[in-house]
């Protein structure tokens, strides 16, 4: 009767090829890295290979690529206007990368790369460094006018400027924690509810109740697919909105 599972076990990193050590820390090519390479491969398949023919009437794969591209181009244009076109490669790559990794995580027994905080924080740090570096390059010190809200009496600025700075620093944190927490919580919840089915089946007369968590697991799976797509979209949208601050900081 004592069947137990560890719902966090699925997030364990498993080194596939060891590359040596730095101190006590092993450097290894993990399954996480393998999934990232696989994601890049799938994205390349969708975007490069499928559009190689460049037919006017798109085939199935080409129209898939076009749907993704136009969707992100629209989102970016709405958030940043015409000046944001140069960031299309960045935003599109981020969106596709996060989307494909999220959806990979939904394959049974697969590993969800985006449920590791360091991965999502790496992506968020990339976004924020692009915002800061591009903003300073383009506008110089004028970029820091972002932290000074306009139309506020001088004494209040002493409080508002630190708040704006903290609010800016909180952006990469909220960007990464949101994606990470959604994926982590979703996968843990699915695992636990699925395990309820097994536990109830082993619990004698109580096993008549076992369809209940089964239905819940099915519903959760559908919800997780929605969350996987939605979080990729939210990540890309927020990236576009933050890039807008780098393009038009003066407010």
């Amino acid at each position, binding site marked *: 009767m004592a069947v137990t599972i560890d719902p966090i076990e699925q997030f364990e990193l498993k080194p596939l090829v060891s590359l040596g050590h730095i101190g006590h820390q092993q450097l290894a090519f993990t399954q996480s890295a393998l999934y990232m390479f696989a994601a890049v491969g799938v994205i390349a398949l969708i975007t490069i290979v499928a559009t190689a023919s460049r037919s006017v009437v798109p085939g199935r794969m080409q129209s898939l690529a076009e749907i993704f591209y136009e969707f992100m181009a629209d989102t970016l244009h709405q958030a940043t206007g015409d000046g944001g076109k140069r960031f299309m490669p960045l935003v599109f790559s981020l969106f596709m990368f996060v989307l494909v990794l999220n959806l990979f995580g939904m394959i049974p027994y697969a590993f969800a790369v985006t449920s590791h905080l360091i991965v999502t924080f790496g992506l968020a740090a990339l976004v924020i460094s692009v915002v800061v570096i591009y903003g300073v390059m383009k506008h110089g010190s004028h970029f820091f006018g972002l932290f000074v809200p306009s139309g506020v009496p001088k004494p209040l600025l002493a409080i508002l400027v630190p708040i704006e700075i903290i609010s800016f620093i*909180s952006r990469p944190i909220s960007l990464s924690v949101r994606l990470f927490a959604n994926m982590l919580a979703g996968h843990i919840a699915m695992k636990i509810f699925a395990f309820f089915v097994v536990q109830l089946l082993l619990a004698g007369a109580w096993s008549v109740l076992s369809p209940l968590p089964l239905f819940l697991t099915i519903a959760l799976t559908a919800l997780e697919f929605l969350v996987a797509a939605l979080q990729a979209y939210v990540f890309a949208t927020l990236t576009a909105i933050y890039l807008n601050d780098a393009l038009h900081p003066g407010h």
Partner: protein
Amino acid sequence: MNGDDARDGKGAEGTPTDSELSARLRRLETQIERKRPQAAPDPSSRPRGTGPSSLGQAMTISTEFVAGVIAGGILGWIVDHVFGTKPWGLIVLLMLGFVAGIYNVMRVSGFAGARPGRRDRQEP
């Protein structure tokens, strides 16, 4: 919110009556009106979206608040480390972090801060 409902006129196969035609015309007009702001986007006066993006917005809000507090805490800890002002930097900046978190939430939900591009999270 797509163009499908303009073509669904049920009696369209036979000879459509005048009222049917004018109803279809009105439906088309409202659709064009809905499409128009998308064709010429104006960053300040866009309607708030519904559907997947508002769900995304709901998920945004909680992390915005937590992130503000965490950012304040980290910043306070760093300030204490650098300037040796042991408890005070953390206390003050954690409180400011709370304020920043609430400010974040207000801005995301559209109560404050008319910074263009901050609150126009809508479906393309």
